[in-house]
């Protein structure tokens, strides 16, 4: 299958070909790839793509998957409507 047709990050529409191209350019950490390609920045916050990208980095650098750090996990766990947070704060929810 063409690497351009294999979608790794579904939220930001990033393909396996994009990942490999960035690795070749020297962006070989998850944090680097995140900033150049936006992987893990969408609504699921990397819950789908993290493991796949970790495996690709490991393969490229010839490391064990466990040796490849994921990107920093940031709040929130899931998307929350801003208005609902405001209402909860005001006690209206």
């Amino acid at each position, binding site marked *: 299958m063409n690497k351009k047709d294999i979608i790794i990050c579904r939220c930001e529409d990033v393909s396996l070909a994009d990942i490999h191209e960035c690795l070749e350019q020297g962006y070989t*950490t998850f944090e680097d790839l995140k900033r150049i390609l936006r992987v893990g920045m*969408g609504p699921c916050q990397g819950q789908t793509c993290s493991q796949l990208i970790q495996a690709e980095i490991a393969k490229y650098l010839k490391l064990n998957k466990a040796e490849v750090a994921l990107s920093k996990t940031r*709040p*929130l766990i899931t*998307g929350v*409507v*801003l*208005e609902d947070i405001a209402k909860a704060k*005001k006690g209206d929810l």
Partner: protein
Amino acid sequence: MIGASIVIIGGGISGLSVAYNLAKKGMKDIHVIDKGYFTNGATGRCGAGVRQQWATKLNCILARKSIEFFKEANKTLNYKKDIEFKQRGYLILATTIEEDEQFSKNVSLQNSLGIPSEKLTVEEALKIVPHLNPKSFISATFCPTDGHVNPFLMSEAYYLAAKDLGVNFHFYEEVKSIEIKEDIIQKVITDKDIYKTKRVVNAAGGYAREIGLMANVEIPVYSENHEILVTERTKDLQGPMVMSFSKNIYCQQVPHGSFLMGRSNPQALPSHDISSSWEFLDEMALTVSDILPEVAKLRVIRTWGGSYNNSPDRQPIISDISTLPNYYIACGFSGHGFMFAPITGELLSQIILGEQLDEYAKELHIDRFKDNKTTDYEHSVV
């Protein structure tokens, strides 16, 4: 041991711009050292806005000149991708009589310096951003040539251009000390290597003060955590950045489709803290619900923090040091280092190479804070 004609400490947007400008003018053996990943510091954490609506002459000039660069940056830097420069303006809301009066003065100053800002009534502002809550402000200012640049891609554009010109980059490498003998810089020592050099640039952003102290240079700056959030992406809803100093908010939709918004914490203490707090989320949600209720219907998907490196007058320090030759600083941007980066690199490269400086640029010298002198203070800051 590596021989370097200059060591630039900090690979964020300021260090990148300085490196690029020096290399373009022919300097060889430039080494940029950064302790983390690409754009790990303030650059990669910023709000991605670029504006010219300032209250001090210096900030206005720096901003205007930087916008001129952004306009042509893809071409100038031969960047194959796109820095996502968008000029859809900044709309700044006045919510009090005092602010309204101050904004009239700001617009006069900006216009006198060639910045096309104007004062707007509530009705005029609503034509530009129809979903604004008309009860949340009394007047506004607008500058159509302000806007947005993608911090990651702008950094990459500088990085690739500098690399092409032969600049050496060392990420994940931390500077531990600077060796000086009889006021002459000798070496920069990192956790991985030793660089033999006579010249050092401190472009360390949030850590500029600490990198100063390594050379016994006292820089009157401190870092402060500013939090920010991003929403899910949505249709094109809002052209300009909407901002209010009195309500403590900036909020823009980036070309990607998501909204970025942030505010400052009046209780924040000087520190290197960059964590996220639930208090920020509460206050941000309340403020955006008040001013931009349509935007508050979106989901927030991520929050983070980053350091403002504040100077005493909230204007940058771009300078050499009278007591230590060949030590140069670009810091104290007070939250605006990204949008001033093009002119920062140009000016500091002129200082380093001993070129003639424009009069205004001399006012950015660190000695302006000597003997408690009074300088212009920038109030237009969130």
